[in-house]
């Protein structure tokens, strides 16, 4: 989505919410039902939802990195940000990556995407001195770029190496994902899409490729697809021993 269309969406939404407020419920409320279903921008996220992603490693195709490239294009990092050219591969941002693992006993090989696991008890949030690392009420773990001082303690604390530090000046950033030199960033679960009833770009790309290895949804809604999948087939946490209760779960590990 280009910046321009996003802005158009935003102003349209503002228009609708204002219009809805002004017109009140007296004027056919059903007309606006679709538009006002997404949480208005002035309302905080609530703990009525907990957003999560379920990844079926049996369906995740080896060699496919659609989720990674979709994330890059959506959030403006990696191939979508030519200005990050001085950092080494070890220094460049990596919001999501593909990992191939082999079981040491059986030799079974699996492929999976790895990103911020959006823990219920996130170590990055615990250690952050200023509170820039934070968890929204709906379970999405984010960095408040305004108060991140770039101490990198969250990166020390994260068990998944899910966070990146911006090592240089960046240009042409996406409006939906501001990035700044000297601050830390990671997967936002495409919070800008989620707030508009959308689906994270990685999940969308996986489905578009017909792999259907990723499910996004509300873990607290027993009728959501992700909850039904988890109930029927289960889903494992990475580093379950740490007791973090991750919002990202894996099947077939």
């Amino acid at each position: 989505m280009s910046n321009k269309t996003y802005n158009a969406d935003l102003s349209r939404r503002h228009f609708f919410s204002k219009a809805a407020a002004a017109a009140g419920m007296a004027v056919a409320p059903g007309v606006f039902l679709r538009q006002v279903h997404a949480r208005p921008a002035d309302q905080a996220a609530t703990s009525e939802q907990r957003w999560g992603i379920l990844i079926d490693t049996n369906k995740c195709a080896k060699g496919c990195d659609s989720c990674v490239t979709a994330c890059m294009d959506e959030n403006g990092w990696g191939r979508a940000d030519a200005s990050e050219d001085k950092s080494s591969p070890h220094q460049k941002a990596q919001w999501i990556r593909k990992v191939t693992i082999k079981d040491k006993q059986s030799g079974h090989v699996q492929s999976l995407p790895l990103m911020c696991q959006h823990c219920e008890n996130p170590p990055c949030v615990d250690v952050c001195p200023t509170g820039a690392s934070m968890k929204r009420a709906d379970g999405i773990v984010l960095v408040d770029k305004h108060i991140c001082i770039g101490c990198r303690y969250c990166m020390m604390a994260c068990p998944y190496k899910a966070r990146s530090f911006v090592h240089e000046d960046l240009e042409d950033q996406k409006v939906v994902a501001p990035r700044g030199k000297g601050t830390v960033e990671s997967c936002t679960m495409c919070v800008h899409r989620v707030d508009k009833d959308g689906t994270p770009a990685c999940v969308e790309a996986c489905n578009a490729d017909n792999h259907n290895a990723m499910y996004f949804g509300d873990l607290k809604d027993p009728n959501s697809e992700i909850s039904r999948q988890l109930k029927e087939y289960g889903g494992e946490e990475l580093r379950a021993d740490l007791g973090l209760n991750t919002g990202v779960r894996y099947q077939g590990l």
Partner: protein
Amino acid sequence: MKNVQFMEIEGRSFGYLALLGILGAIILVGLGAWYVMEHEGHYVTGMNNAVVWGTPHIFAIFLIVAASGALNVASISSVFNKTAYKPLARLSGLLAIALLAGGLMILVLDLGRPDRLIVAMTYYNFKSIFAWNIILYNGFFAIVAVYLWMMMQQSMNKYSKPVGVVAFLWRLILTTGTGSIFGFLVARQGYDAAIMAPLFIAMSFSFGLAIFLLVLMASYKWTGRPLGDAILQRLKNLLGVFVAGVLYFVLAYHLTNLYATEHHGIEAFILRDGGIYTQLFWIGQIVIGSLLPLVLFYHPSTGKNRTLVGLGALLVIIGGMIQLYVLIIGGQAYPLEIFPGKEVIESGFFDGQVAEYAPSIWEVLLGLAGVAVALIMVALAVKILRFMPTSLADEDVDPHHSA
């Protein structure tokens, strides 16, 4: 004991001015290095997204740990009533403040956004040990400053003991906080251990006293003031005990890890297969930083030789820096165990591989600037205020001395 006379140093000699000039130049160069890092971004440093704390943190944590340890000499006199240490108490407090200031300067300047220092001072997440440390560091400055005041103004001397007790307790809490920065990291194989707190306290005793000993020897030599063997022998014997104490905690840490299968990976990495980290551990930390100083301090033929005692203290400092390198860089270089029982055969982000890190010149220069800041603060303060006794000759400090 005779009444100890404290006096400012004259501070007009060529040597003194040269010292200030050299330290000032190191600071300027370090600030230049900082400007490069902040202007360009941290891509010019050795850090990356796996090894996020690099050389500046080694310097900073070394100085911060040493700061609380440098205060021990004052604590021994005020809290534990050892009168022989009393003449040294002021210098001990001064050094503590100076080392902490140097360390914090490095830490702040290595932030991704040092311009947001005010944010760090105004937004607190009280579950973060880092946030607690910000309070502990600031409190340490205030308490030690008051402590120095109590010691230096005669009418306030009677309060130096209670304030000294507060300072002593505060420094123990402070170093517990510094060690817990690593102790509280649940995800990393090399950290996540309660022993980090007492280990860091032992390290602070050792590093702080080693620096104190060297600063004392240098300042008395350069100002031509007498420094007796009695006080030096006491200090070096004590330093030896502290070095052995660190060694004990290191031993307990590795033995515990070696017992638990889940920690065999990190232990094999540090103790056997880690290349540079293994070499630094055995040669740098254990032999140069621990065993050699112990021999120099306690062997009858070397323990009475000032130069060799000074060399021993220098080795403790070098070994301490190396110990922090192994702990901080080695602990991060060892890959995270994200998939226990599985082997990573391909990754878009170097999972399962030992992370690379090589110190950049900018980081080293910034670190050295922090050391220079600490030393220049001491050099200036002893010229302005009465920190140093005019004589530490045996007959002036030890009532039972018989020459």
